[in-house]
């Protein structure tokens, strides 16, 4: 099995599925000859031609709007939004249209499509090349929201998303594009949506995280272990629909919970995890449910390393939760 970076796994996932399904096509800004600004779509136009991988005018509204039209006519569009920060011009198309089409037409029209987009900090991108907008989308019924954190999951979840009958927002942690490597099967395979990945088992504290925060949490958990605190680490990987039972089970198993994400805290995705616990298994909790998150500010540039949760911040929270 080849060892690939997360970025290569995405590229490989696209190629594998395009080879087997002629209805899959990829488009967005600069995805063609240039291969995307991160090179996630490198080689696609060469291999599959301009009809199956092509550039579009500079309009996210147009990219998503036309993808919906293609999706309802038998194609399987994979639309790229160059940075998640630039998805907002398409917010109406995603939230009002793609997410609600099946419902409002009683299933007569549907939008099986994938929106791929790199998200998150770590590249000194400042306000508009660093954001993590998952909470905006996870509040939207009709949409699925998927975030991988390993090369294996990136390919398997991406293919599952493309084959899914509903619209999927597939957010790629750009900080991990080249920094994580792993074995990735060569063939077409899927990782089921709405399943958790238990990254590490431990009896003391449960940590929920996803995307670029997973390696940060793993590092903190290792440090905690050295101090005698054993953590269960859960990679949520599908944020909507969430495997709620899996979350509750993991929370109950330790009675102590930390939730980690890099997006701002207030009304962030972590709030839902905390709320689920407060609603469905508060009687198991032996400590406050802590959140380690980005601050409730826009994303800064020079000081991004202070803004982003790091292993130290996570470790602090683990210790406080353990000692409570």
């Amino acid at each position, binding site marked *: 099995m080849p060892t690939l970076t997360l970025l290569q796994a995405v590229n490989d996932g696209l190629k594998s599925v395009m080879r087997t399904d002629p209805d899959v*096509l990829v488009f967005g800004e600069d995805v063609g000859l240039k291969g995307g600004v991160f090179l996630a779509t490198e080689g696609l136009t060469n291999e599959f031609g301009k*009809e199956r991988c092509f550039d*579009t*005018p500079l*309009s996210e*509204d*147009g990219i*998503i*709007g*036309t*993808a*919906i*039209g*293609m*999706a*309802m*006519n*038998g*194609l399987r*569009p994979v639309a790229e939004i160059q940075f998640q920060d630039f998805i907002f*011009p398409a917010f*109406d*198309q995603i939230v*009002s*249209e793609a997410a*609600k*089409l*099946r*419902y*409002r*037409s*009683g*299933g*007569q*029209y*549907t939008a099986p499509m994938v929106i791929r987009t790199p998200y998150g900090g770590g590249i000194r991108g400042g306000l508009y090349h660093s954001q993590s907008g998952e909470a905006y989308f996870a509040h939207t*019924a*009709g949409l*699925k929201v998927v975030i991988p954190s390993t090369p294996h999951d990136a390919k398997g979840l991406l293919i599952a998303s493309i084959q899914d*009958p*509903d619209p999927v927002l597939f957010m790629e942690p750009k900080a991990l594009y080249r920094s994580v490597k792993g074995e990735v099967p060569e063939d077409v395979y899927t990782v089921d949506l*709405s399943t958790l990945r238990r990254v590490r088992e431990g009896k003391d504290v449960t940590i929920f995280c996803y995307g670029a925060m997973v390696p940060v949490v793993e590092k903190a958990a290792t440090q905690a272990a050295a101090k005698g605190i054993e953590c269960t680490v859960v990679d949520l990987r599908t944020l909507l*629909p*969430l*495997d*709620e*039972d899996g979350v509750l089970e993991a929370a109950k198993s330790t009675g102590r919970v930390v939730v980690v994400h890099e997006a701002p805290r207030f009304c962030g995705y972590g709030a839902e995890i905390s709320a689920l616990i407060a609603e469905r298994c508060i009687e198991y909790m032996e400590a406050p449910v802590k959140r380690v998150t980005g601050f409730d500010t826009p994303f800064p540039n020079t000081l991004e390393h202070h803004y982003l949760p790091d292993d130290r911040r996570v470790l602090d929270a683990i210790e406080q939760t353990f000692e409570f």
Partner: protein
Amino acid sequence: MDTTELLKVIEPDGATPGFDTDLSDAELVHCYRTMLAVRAFDDVCMKLQRAGRIGFSIPNKGIEATQVGAASAIDKTDFLFPSYRDFGMALYHRVPPVEMMHNMFGNELDSAHGRQMPVHFSFVDPIRLYSISSPIGTHIPHAVGAAHAFRLKGEDRVCLVSFGDGGTSSLGFHSGLNFAGVWKAPVVFLCQNNGWAISCPSEEQTASEGYAIKAKAYGMPGIVVDGNDLLAVRQATSDAVARARRGEGPTLIEARTFRMGGHSTSDDPTRYVPAELLEEWGRKDPVTRFQRYLEKEGIWTAKLEEQLTAEVSAEINAAAKVAEGTGQPGLETIFSDVYADLPTHLRKQGEFLFDLTARRGDAAAGDGAFPL
């Protein structure tokens, strides 16, 4: 053909000098009958709304020729993306009025299971008539994507997408037309310029000289047509459809017409529509104009009128009665169709609601077991 001159075929007196229609007499009668049906459907809905039996409707009066003329230019295998003010498009393509009425009542036979407001139709049969959305202009790029898919899949089909003068200010208009131009997508854009976007007149909507000229921004032809002249609208649309089928790309058609009623049953147009304008456009009534044409052609007779009026009125009244007598959607329709499969959290929410209504003794709860 690319003109800012108004395309017109039928003279006020019904004459069509130098024009020969490709429609058979039966087809011409179907067009006329459809316009009468629109008017009847409109009237029935207005009355139902005033009586509090449906919540809302959208008057179509004055726009019938645009709707029917344009719809007549596309085939059943094509794909219609209408606006909410397009009763005539569905009726022309023989969507049974009762299906439309099910939507007006939001009952259990409504194709959208009563989830949408009235006039938000969705059909796949006898023609693909796209699920209507309230946000203005969002369907325009959908039509472009669908048309592009036809081309990529080698299917000989086109999309006709309709929107209002106000719709040209929407984001979907800009991105839709721009993408269609670049892709040379087989799509026809029909801007129904009916003078108003609710209370906003055209001169406050845009500073451009009409709407057809906006085509220039996207490298496609823009055509202005008399929207109260069924044959002219049909002609312009047929030409554009033919162009699209030939692979020559999209066309923007502006049909100039006038909304003879309020924006909706919630609107009081006397607050902002000058009475003179209403009078002026009243004299240009599209149904009368086409009737005069049919008369000149020897097709229209008083007897035909009587027969058609009786037919459509009976059909539509019957449709309303059936729809009103049909039950409400089941509680499970709140939770189905959010996704293809029901996720756990929605199953739980559904079970909760079934339990709650059962405890309340609410009839709508069914037999107490959440069926999804």
